[in-house]
C-alpha cells in the first residue's frame, strides 16, 4: 500500500513550487504576478453523543490554490484556480500545479480582455474598472514551526474517542434534565506553503486543537440548547489539561463541557427576560464582548467589505462611504474604547504571515474612541492607498483568501470589573455570547446572551433566559463608560464569509465593559 501523505510533503514540493512561481509562471504571456499556496494537514477528529463515541476520523488533507494577475487587451485582471489533492498526486505535483497556473492565467487573461471591452463600451460609467495591482510588501523567506506538546499525529483514535465519550457521559449524568449532548473534538497539524513570483517562500506549520459542545436540557421554563467552543493553536494537551497563559485561560475539555452543562441546566429553569422599555445600564462580560467585538468592530474594519466588494452577501461597513468619506480619524466610540487586530500574538487567529506573504503586525482599529485603521489585503490596500497589514487569509489553500479578522479584541482597561456594578441602581449583567443578528453595514445589532442577570443597587440578582442586547452600534460605543481590567481572549471557530462560505478560526475577546442599551427578551 502507498504511504499516506503527511505534512512532510511540503518539504518535498517546496523547491518545485518556488520554481513554478518564479520561473514557469513568469514566462506566461502578460503575467504580472503569480502566487501559489499549498496546504497539507493531518490529525484526528472524534464525535461522541449522549455518553458514547459515535464516529472518529483520521483527517488528512492536501490542496493547492493559485492566483495570477495578467494583462490582456490593455487591462489587468485576476484569475484563480484551486484543487483538492491526495497521496496519488504527490509524484505528479509539479505538473498538476502548472496546469492550475495555466487555468488561472487563462481566466485572468480572458477577464482582462472583457474588462477592457466593458471599459470601452460604457465609457466614464466604467472607468473605475481599474488595472488590478497589489500593494508592495517585502518578499519574505521563512520557515515557522508549530508549537505543541502532544503531537496530533501521535494520538490514538481509540484513546481519544474513549476520552471524549467519557466526558459526554459525565455531561449526560450531570442532571436528569439533560436530554441530549454532542461533543466533537479534533487535533491537527496544518502546514502552509506560500511561494510567489516576487520570490516569497514561506513555510508555516501550526497545531490546532478544538472542541465543540452542544447541550440540550429541558427546564421549568422550557427546552434550552446551548453550545460553545474551546481551542487553541496547540496540541491535544489544550483539551486534555486546559491552557493558562497570558490572556488565554482555557479549562480542560471535561471542565469546559461540564461548565456549559451547568449553565444550560440552571438557565433552563429561569424565566424569560422581560424587554426594557428603553436603554438601561448593561455590564457585558468578556465572553459576550468576544462576539460584540467580532461583529461590530472586526467585520466592519475588513477593507474588502468597506470597499463594497461584499455588499451582495456579507454587507458593507458603517465606517466607510467611499474613499473620500470615511470615519477614519473620527470619534466612533467613547475615549475608553480601544480595539485592535493582532495576528502576531498568541491566539486562535495567530499567523506570522498572511496568505499573500505580508508579515503580521498589530493593527489599531479604534484608539481612544477614534477610528484609525482597517484590516487589509494587498489588493484592497492598493485601492485605498494604504499599507498592506496582513489580513488576507483562506481557510484552505484551494479557496481564494479574503480579508479576515485575526486576534481581534477590545483592549483592556484599568477598572476592576466589580467596580463596574457598584453605582448601577437598576441594570443588567449580560453573560456569555450566544447568537448574533447584525444589520447590513453593522450599524445595528441584536446579540443574545447565554444568561442575563438583573442588577439591583449594585448587586447581581435574578437570572433570566433568552435575553439580548439590541442597539445601534455607534450609540452603544459612545455610551461605554467603564472598561474592566479582566481581559480574556476566546477562540471563535466558525466565522463565515465568502462565496463559497469559508468558516475561519480566529480569536476575539475583551474585558468586562459597561454601556447603556435596550435589553430584549423573546
Amino acid at each position, binding site marked *: 500500500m502507498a504511504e*499516506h501523505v503527511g505534512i512532510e510533503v511540503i518539504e518535498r514540493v517546496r523547491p518545485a513550487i518556488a520554481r513554478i512561481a518564479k520561473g514557469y509562471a513568469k514566462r506566461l504571456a502578460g503575467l504580472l504576478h503569480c502566487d501559489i499556496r499549498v496546504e497539507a494537514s493531518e490529525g484526528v477528529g472524534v464525535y461522541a453523543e449522549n455518553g*458514547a463515541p459515535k*464516529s472518529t*476520523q*483520521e483527517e488528512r488533507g492536501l490542496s493547492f490554490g493559485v492566483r495570477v494577475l495578467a494583462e490582456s487587451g490593455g487591462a489587468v485582471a*485576476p*484569475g484563480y484556480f484551486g*484543487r*483538492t*489533492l*491526495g497521496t*496519488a498526486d504527490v509524484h505528479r505535483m509539479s505538473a498538476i500545479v502548472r496546469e492550475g497556473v495555466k487555468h488561472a492565467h487563462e*481566466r485572468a487573461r*480572458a*477577464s482582462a480582455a*472583457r474588462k477592457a471591452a*466593458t471599459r470601452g463600451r*460604457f465609457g*466614464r*460609467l*466604467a472607468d*473605475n*474598472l*481599474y488595472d488590478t495591482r497589489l500593494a508592495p510588501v517585502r518578499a519574505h523567506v521563512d520557515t515557522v514551526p508549530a508549537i505543541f506538546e502532544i503531537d496530533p499525529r501521535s494520538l490514538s*483514535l*481509540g484513546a481519544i*474517542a474513549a476520552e471524549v465519550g467519557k466526558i459526554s457521559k459525565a455531561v449526560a449524568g450531570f442532571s436528569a434534565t439533560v436530554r*441530549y449532548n*454532542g461533543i466533537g473534538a479534533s487535533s491537527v497539524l496544518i502546514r502552509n506553503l506560500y511561494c510567489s513570483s516576487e520570490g516569497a517562500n514561506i513555510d508555516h506549520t501550526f497545531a490546532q486543537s478544538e472542541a465543540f459542545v452542544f447541550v440540550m436540557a429541558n427546564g421549568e421554563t*422550557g427546552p434550552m440548547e*446551548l453550545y460553545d467552543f474551546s481551542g487553541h493553536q496547540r496540541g491535544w494537551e489544550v483539551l486534555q489539561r486546559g491552557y493558562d497563559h497570558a490572556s488565554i485561560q482555557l479549562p480542560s475539555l471535561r471542565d469546559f463541557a461540564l461548565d456549559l452543562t451547568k449553565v444550560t441546566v440552571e438557565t433552563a429553569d429561569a424565566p424569560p427576560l422581560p424587554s426594557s422599555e428603553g436603554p438601561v445600564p448593561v455590564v457585558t462580560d468578556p465572553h459576550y464582548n468576544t462576539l460584540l467585538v467580532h461583529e461590530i468592530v472586526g467585520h466592519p474594519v475588513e477593507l474588502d467589505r468597506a*470597499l*463594497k*466588494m*461584499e*455588499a*451582495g*452577501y456579507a*454587507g458593507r461597513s458603517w465606517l466607510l462611504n*467611499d*474613499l473620500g*468619506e470615511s470615519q477614519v480619524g473620527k*470619534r466612533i466610540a467613547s475615549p475608553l474604547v480601544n480595539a485592535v487586530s493582532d495576528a502576531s500574538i498568541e491566539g486562535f487567529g495567530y499567523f506570522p504571515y498572511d496568505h499573500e506573504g505580508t508579515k503580521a503586525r498589530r493593527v489599531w482599529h479604534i484608539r481612544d474612541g477614534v477610528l484609525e485603521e482597517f484590516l487589509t489585503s494587498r489588493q484592497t490596500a492598493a*485601492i485605498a492607498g494604504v499599507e498592506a497589514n496582513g489580513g488576507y487569509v483562506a481557510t484552505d489553500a484551494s479557496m*481564494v483568501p479574503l480579508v479576515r479578522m485575526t486576534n481581534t479584541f477590545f483592549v483592556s482597561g484599568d477598572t476592576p470589573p466589580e467596580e463596574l456594578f457598584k453605582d448601577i441602581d437598576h441594570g443588567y449583567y449580560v453573560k456569555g455570547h*450566544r*447568537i448574533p*443578528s447584525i*444589520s447590513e*453595514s453593522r450599524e*445595528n445589532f441584536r446579540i443574545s446572551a447565554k444568561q442575563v442577570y438583573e442588577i439591583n443597587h449594585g448587586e447581581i440578582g435574578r437570572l433570566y433566559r*433568552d435575553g439580548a442586547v*439590541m442597539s*445601534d*452600534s455607534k450609540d452603544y460605543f459612545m455610551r461605554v463608560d467603564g472598561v474592566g481590567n479582566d481581559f480574556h481572549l476566546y477562540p471563535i471557530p466558525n466565522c*463565515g464569509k465568502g*462565496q463559497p*462560505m469559508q468558516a475561519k478560526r480566529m480569536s476575539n475577546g475583551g474585558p468586562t465593559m459597561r454601556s447603556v442599551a435596550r435589553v*430584549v427578551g*423573546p
Partner: protein
Amino acid sequence: MLTVPQLKRAVADAIAYLRTVPDVQEAEVFMAANANLITRLAFTSHIPSNGVEEPKSNESFGVGLRVVFRDGGGIKQGFGSEPSDMTLAGVAQALDKARRGAVPDPEFVSLPRMGAKPRRSLIKYHDPALMKLDDAGLVDLGWRVVDGALEVFQSSEALLEWSRSPDTVKDLGLILTGDMMVIQERVAVGNTVEGAVIGDETALISSVATSMVERRNTKGTGWHVGGTLAGFGDGPGDDAARNAIRAADGVRIPEGEYRVVLGPQPVTDILNNLVLPGLSLGLFHAWASPFQGKLGKQIASRTLSMYDHGALRGLAASKGVTDEGLPTGRTDLIRHGRLVGLLANWYEHQRALHDPEGARKLGVDPNLYVAAIAPRNGFRFGMGGGRHFTQPPGIAATNVMVEGTEEVPTDELLRRVGDGIYIGRIWYTYPINGITQGDFTCTVIGDSYLIKDGRLGKPLQPNAVRLNDNTHRILNGIIGIGREKKPTVVWNADEIVHAPEIAIESVAINEVGDALMKGD
C-alpha cells in the same frame, strides 16, 4: 473530470475487492468528482474595482467508504476517504482509515439497502453544456451579469436626472456585487451486500446579484437558479439594477406590529434558517426541533402546504439518486398546516424506528409513520456545492415547493394586507434564542415597500427596520399565499425553494437608527 461510467467501474472494482477483505462485514462505496466554478462580482462606479473579481474554481474527486467491520463477536462502524485515487490502492487507503477510526455504534442498524436493481428517479436530466464550461466561458458568464447591470445604469433616465449629467452618473455610487456559480457533480455508489452500482450526474447554474445606488440609499436584488446554460441568458444583473433604481429614496417607519407580504427571498431565508433545519429527523433525535412531538399535528395556518421533491424533471436541485444510492422523490412536510413528514437519511430513519423514545420525540410511533420519515434526503453536500466523498451523508433538502390551498395573485395579497409593508429582502435571519424557541430576528435590507390601501406605495429605506418575531407566530399567521413561485437560493443554502409571496397577519418590527455615516 471523470465520467460517470468511469466512476461506476471504479465502484464495482472496489466492491469486488472489499468483498474479499476478511473483517469487512459490509461496505458502501461512494465515488464522486465535483467542480464548482464561480465568478464573484464586484463593480463599484465610485471606487476602483475589477467587475469580475474572482473567476475561480475548486475541483476534487475521490472515494468515501462506510464500512462495518467484524470485531470479535460484535461489529464496529468506520468512515474513510481518499482523494484523487479511484484505484484499488486508493480504496485500500480509505479502508485503512475507516478501520483505524471504527467505533461500535449501538444505534447503528445497517448501511443503506439500494436493492439488487437500484432505481434512479431521473435519467439524462441535466444540461451537458453546463458540464463543459471552459475558462473563457466561466469568465464570460460573470461579465454578462456585470454588463447587464451597466446597461441599465447607462440607459436609466432616473440616474441621469439624479446626477444631472451623463458624466457624473458614476458619482451616484453604483454597485453590482454577487456571484455566478456553476456546480458540476458526478457520483457513483454501491454496496457489498447487493453488489449493484448506480451513478448520477447533475449540474446547476445560479447567480445572485445585488445592486445599489448609494447616494440614493437604495438596494435591489436579482437572481437566477436553473439547470441549463441557455436558460441563464445574460443573468440577473439587469434585474438587480432596475430594482435598485426603483426603490430609491425610501422612507422610514415607526416600530410596531405590521401586516406584511414576504417576497420570495424572505420566504426562502426564513425556511432555510428557521423552518427546514427543524424538519430534519436528526434534530428530532436531539430534542432540538421547534416542532418536537408535533408530527401529525397542526403547526401552521391551514392554507400552507410544503414538500421537498428531489425528482422533478427540469428543476435545478433534482437528483436521480441520493448519495446513499436511494431513489429521490417527494416528501410531504406540511399539508394544510399539519406536520406530515420529515427529511431523513438512512441512518436517522433506521435510528428513529428503533429509538425507545421515538414516539415521544416525534409525537407518534415512528413505526406507524415509516413513509413520513422515508430516507430520500441523504446527501453529502459541502464546500459550497458538490456531493463530497470526504464526508458521510447528512440530511439536506432539494427542491422545496411551497403551496397554498388557495393561491392568489400579488394584487390580492396586497389587498388582504391593506396597509402594511412588502418585504422583499431580509438579512442575517437567525434563531436568536436557539432554534427550539422559534424566536428570530433579522433586518430588512432592500426591495421593500410600504403597502397603502392595498397597493405598493413608497419604498422602505434599506436597513431601517429589524424584524423581531417568532417562527410559530409567522407560520400560524399566514393570511394568503401567492400564485407565482420563484426558484430562490440564499447564501450557503443547499436547497432551492420555489417560493411564493406570503402575506402574514402581524409581524413585530423595531426601528434601526439612521446612524450610518452621520457626522461625529
